[in-house]
């Protein structure tokens, strides 16, 4: 299917990135990226800031040129075409609504550039879709952040692009509006059948909206798949920690059966199904999600279907209404986080209590890399963490040259 910017896309188009590399003076944003997004899907690129996800989006939009590699939209190579020649529209993180134009002029801008008839009628239709037609004559500065965001969405969607790019479009919204817009986006995507490429650092947003999520880190995709698949079976330490929380343990494989491997973690024997473990011998890192872990006041009975750790001490309890998070310190093993649904009344253990923890063997997973190699994943939302990342990047670069 060839796509021209002179006509509306009948349906979403495939996006293919082949061997993409992007270097900026001084650093490499994307090392090596191969990605295929099937037509009509809602695809999320998830990662911390600086992981290369926005650069990927800008490459697809044509706002940056790749150092190497090809970009194909609907089977057509668009690598050498300029942004205005691509059948792609972007909802920018900053919205970038033209301040000197009214809302309706903003929305009709793309249609008028393509000389599509009835630009104003179509623009009004798009504004009705986002329920803002009554503000058509206003200027962007007179609208609230949420309204501007919806205008930005209308301005992109009205063009019926084969591919819609969303650059953290919900970042500036409050929680309620965010939910509302998430739902609206999803509905529009299903109605119109466009291909959506959504870039975000919000794992919850990615999981609720996308049918496929790719987790990006340091300019490469760590793991890709359906949200539940990524969550239940993370492959790397980064994914395990970035997408939700994980309790990770490192140990040596001490026994192997047809269906499971046993790992010795500081004397405790933890079992992981072979099918859910990436590596089956030597030093391995295994983990379990905090909500899969059960807390016991008394030592639970030994069972082949459950991993048991303990005794340990509760060192922190934080009650958040619907659930309670316990942090349990187990000698030799370290700290384990437990999420317990608030089924009874109030927390079942308090600080200092002696407890045991257990989880179903089937819920464990084995990772492809080691905790020690990957390092503890640092949240990138404080200045210290950013400084550390910068320094690491600089050191890596120095070693390279």
């Amino acid at each position, binding site marked *: 299917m060839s796509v021209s*910017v002179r006509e509306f896309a009948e349906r979403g188009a495939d996006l293919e990135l082949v061997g993409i590399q992007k270097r900026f003076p001084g650093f490499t944003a994307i090392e090596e990226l191969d990605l295929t997004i099937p037509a009509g899907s809602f695809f999320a690129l998830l990662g911390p800031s600086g992981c290369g996800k926005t650069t990927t989006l800008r490459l697809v*939009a*044509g*706002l940056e040129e790749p150092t190497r590699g090809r970009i194909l939209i609907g089977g057509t190579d668009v690598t050498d075409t*300029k*942004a*205005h*020649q691509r059948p*792609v*529209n*972007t909802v*920018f993180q*900053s919205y*970038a*609504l*033209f*301040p*000197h134009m009214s809302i309706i002029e903003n929305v009709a*801008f*793309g249609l008028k*550039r*393509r000389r599509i008839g009835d630009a104003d009628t179509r623009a009004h239709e798009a504004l009705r879709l986002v329920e803002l037609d009554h503000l058509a004559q206003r*200027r962007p*500065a*007179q609208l609230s952040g949420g309204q501007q965001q919806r205008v930005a969405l209308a*301005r992109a969607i009205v*063009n019926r692009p084969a591919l819609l790019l969303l650059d953290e479009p919900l970042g500036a919204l409050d929680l309620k509006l965010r939910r509302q817009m998430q739902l609206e986006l999803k509905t529009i995507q299903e109605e119109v059948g466009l291909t959506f490429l959504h870039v975000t650092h919000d794992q919850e947003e990615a999981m609720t909206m996308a049918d496929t999520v790719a987790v990006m880190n340091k300019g490469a995709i760590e793991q890709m798949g359906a949200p539940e698949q990524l969550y239940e079976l993370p492959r790397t330490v980064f994914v395990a920690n970035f997408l939700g929380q994980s309790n990770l343990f490192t140990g040596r494989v001490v026994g192997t059966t047809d269906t499971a491997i046993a790992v010795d973690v500081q004397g405790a024997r933890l079992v992981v199904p072979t099918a859910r473990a990436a590596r089956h011998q030597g030093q391995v890192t295994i983990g379990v999600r905090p909500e899969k872990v059960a807390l016991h006041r008394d030592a639970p009975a030994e069972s082949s279907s459950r991993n048991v750790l303990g005794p340990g001490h509760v060192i922190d309890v934080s009650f958040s209404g619907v659930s309670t998070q316990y942090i349990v310190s187990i000698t030799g093993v370290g700290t384990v986080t437990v999420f317990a649904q608030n089924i009874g009344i109030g927390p079942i253990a308090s600080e200092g209590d002696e407890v045991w923890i257990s989880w179903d063997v089937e819920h464990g997973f084995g990772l492809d890399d080691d905790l020690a190699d990957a390092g503890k994943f640092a949240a990138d939302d404080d200045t210290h963490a950013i400084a550390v990342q910068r320094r690491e990047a600089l050191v890596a670069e120095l070693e390279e040259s």
Partner: protein
Amino acid sequence: MAFAAFTTTEAQPQAPKRKSRIALFLLLPGILYMVLFFLTPLISLILTSLQAPNEFGDIGVYDYAFNWQNYVTVVQEYWPHILRSFGYALVATVLALAFSYPLAYFIGVKARRWPLLQSVMLVLVIAPFFISFLLRTLAWKQLLSDESFIITSLKALSLMAPDAHFTGTPAAVIFGLTYNFIPFMTLPLYTTLERLDLRYLEAGSDLYANPFTVFRKVTIPLSMPGIVAGTLLTFIPAAGDYVNASRDFLGGPDTQMMGNVIEANFLVLLNYPAAAALSIILMAAILVLVGIYVKRSGTEDLL
């Protein structure tokens, strides 16, 4: 301020409810200055422009009167100079804009990545101010005189007729005006373009606008405050300029502008009422032209 020009002013800052005596006190020097050095001369100028010649007096002696015919006389006598003034000023403004916009765009947008280059280029734009513009204009008179290297070379290359002159022609005056006012055009343009958010340009190209359309539909409207400020700062003084068009500088007998005529009437012919009337006409004409211009360019907030 850039965007204030485009948005209807919604939230005016609340004026303090109690009139502050201190604020009035602080304003006093400014008010006094304006009354003394703007209002008084202006009234004096208006009164002078209506004076009639003294019946028995010598040349240069006038009595207060209501001789509005002075205006008719000067317009009848000097209308070519009036037209020439605004014509030259207009051409010089357009040329200065055509020259300054790319320059300001380069300094304010393209050079953002190199702050040092940006500073150096800005200093170069301002550098001419370190020397009096009279000296610089005189220097151009030498550089462009008939015996100068530039003109003899042009003649040798047959790009100019052997008996042609450059100084004393309208082209020379317009050249001088353009040259002298380029910094006044470049600096306001630079300040707007330096704050131009490039994301709007990206949004434009994302919405199928080719680079030329992005420039026309996004860059130009967003830099309108700078364009208006720059053209006003160039056009107003250029229309009243009397240095470049003067015979002592780049002008000749056929290039006299209003400023030259006013100067001659005040200082040589001692016809003060005519000079005053011309000054008032110049001022009023500029006010009207600027008013129309600002109204049409949609940047009323600048006034």
